[in-house]
């Protein structure tokens, strides 16, 4: 049986560990998921897998 619309909208939130929020604030969880997807799309591509992430790792010594 096809899940109901509220169930379908809440599912990503539950998968992300936001069960309580998905129940109490399903619209906010859906908006959060969409905002994350937009940010992912905006910075997807263009990078090189060999690029050093920022900030670069720094070795430290202790005396």
């Amino acid at each position: 049986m096809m899940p109901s619309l509220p169930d379908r909208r809440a599912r990503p939130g539950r998968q992300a560990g936001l069960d309580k929020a998905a129940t109490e604030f399903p619209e906010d969880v859906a908006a959060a998921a969409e905002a994350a997807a937009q940010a992912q799309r905006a910075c997807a591509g263009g990078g090189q897998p060999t690029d050093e992430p920022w900030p670069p790792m720094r070795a430290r010594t202790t005396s």
Partner: protein
Amino acid sequence: MSDAHWLTATEISAAYAARHLSPVELVRALLDRIAALDPRVHAFIKVDAEAALDAAGLAEREIAAGRSRGPLHGVPVGIKDIIDVAGLPTTCHSKLLLDHVATADAEVTARLRAAGAIILGKLALHEFAIGGPAFDLPFPPARNPWNTSHHPGGSSSGSGAALAAGLVPLALGTDTGGSVRNPAGACGVVGLKPTYGLVSRRGVFPLAFTLDHVGPMARSVGDVALLLDTLAGHDPADPGSVATASRRFGEDLGRGVRGLRIGFVRHFHETDLTADPEIAAALDEAARVLEGEGAHVRTVTLPSLREFSGVQRVIMLANPGPFTPAGCASVPGDYSASSRRKLMSGAFLSAGDYVSAQQRRSALIGSRGRRVPRRGRAPVRQRHGPRVSHRRRGGRGAHLSAPGPQPVQSDRASRRSP
């Protein structure tokens, strides 16, 4: 002295030296003004009147005895309520931290005290420096003193509003994605996001560790430089702090811009995120004025604003402070709707997304370094349009629709709100 509330820190220091004004007189005048105006502006979360008057009395005695501590001695300052002041709550404008009392000063607070500055109180912000102006929090959102139906920008909303209303001559803000520069622009004051590592973040509630900065705010460029002189310096207790040579940040003020090379990133506001015509015209006029004063302004092309913004958002949302997204998972109703939506976004981002964004960040930093000359400048538009209404939306918060450029800066002020 009438109108003492509009004096800059530089003018206050001179007035103290000339015995035209005393710290106690100034603090009393500001407390009176806060009592009269803040019920409409809502810039303050906490006014620490008693401690401020005590500190003013001490400063007055020291200055009278010829023991001046420098240009900030006896000058009042407001602190964004995300920065610790020992003995006062650091609420982050949130229900979750109403009873969270700081046991020690943040490094920046300690530096201000050592310089003789007077802590006047804690200033409003967007919840955890990430939510928007909201009406479902324990404190009302700050209003823009130029028009109290308008938003003062954020997240250092109280800092911008307090300066523009003449409630404080100096303020501290924090900036993770425009939170000093945005309210500075919206309120017509001056704000600076310092170079990462220059100012300690110890004792400042974190939002995104690799993006967080403490920034000085004031009504003049000279005052921002004075404030930065006091704030900057190595702090071994902040892992991001950098040891740099001591310098006076205002030493080049007044020397003009002749010979300064300025990269103008036109595509940010012309095509990437089309600016309001009023703002686009103001940017062009600024470029013309700078050229007229002898600066070399040339158009430069960077990666798209959308990419800068996307990378910043992934890093900020996936790299949250201690209350998110786990906090949203356990007590979602204790957050404002605005911050709840933003903070929960982090739950939908993976470690891989975060590392990819940090890799792309390196490339974006490199692209800016190649195209904007060393010691050059890149003026860009303000985050929002010229006017953003501060209207309620379903009783939950104001709507700010424009995503915006992160590197925003306001460098002209000294106007007075009506």
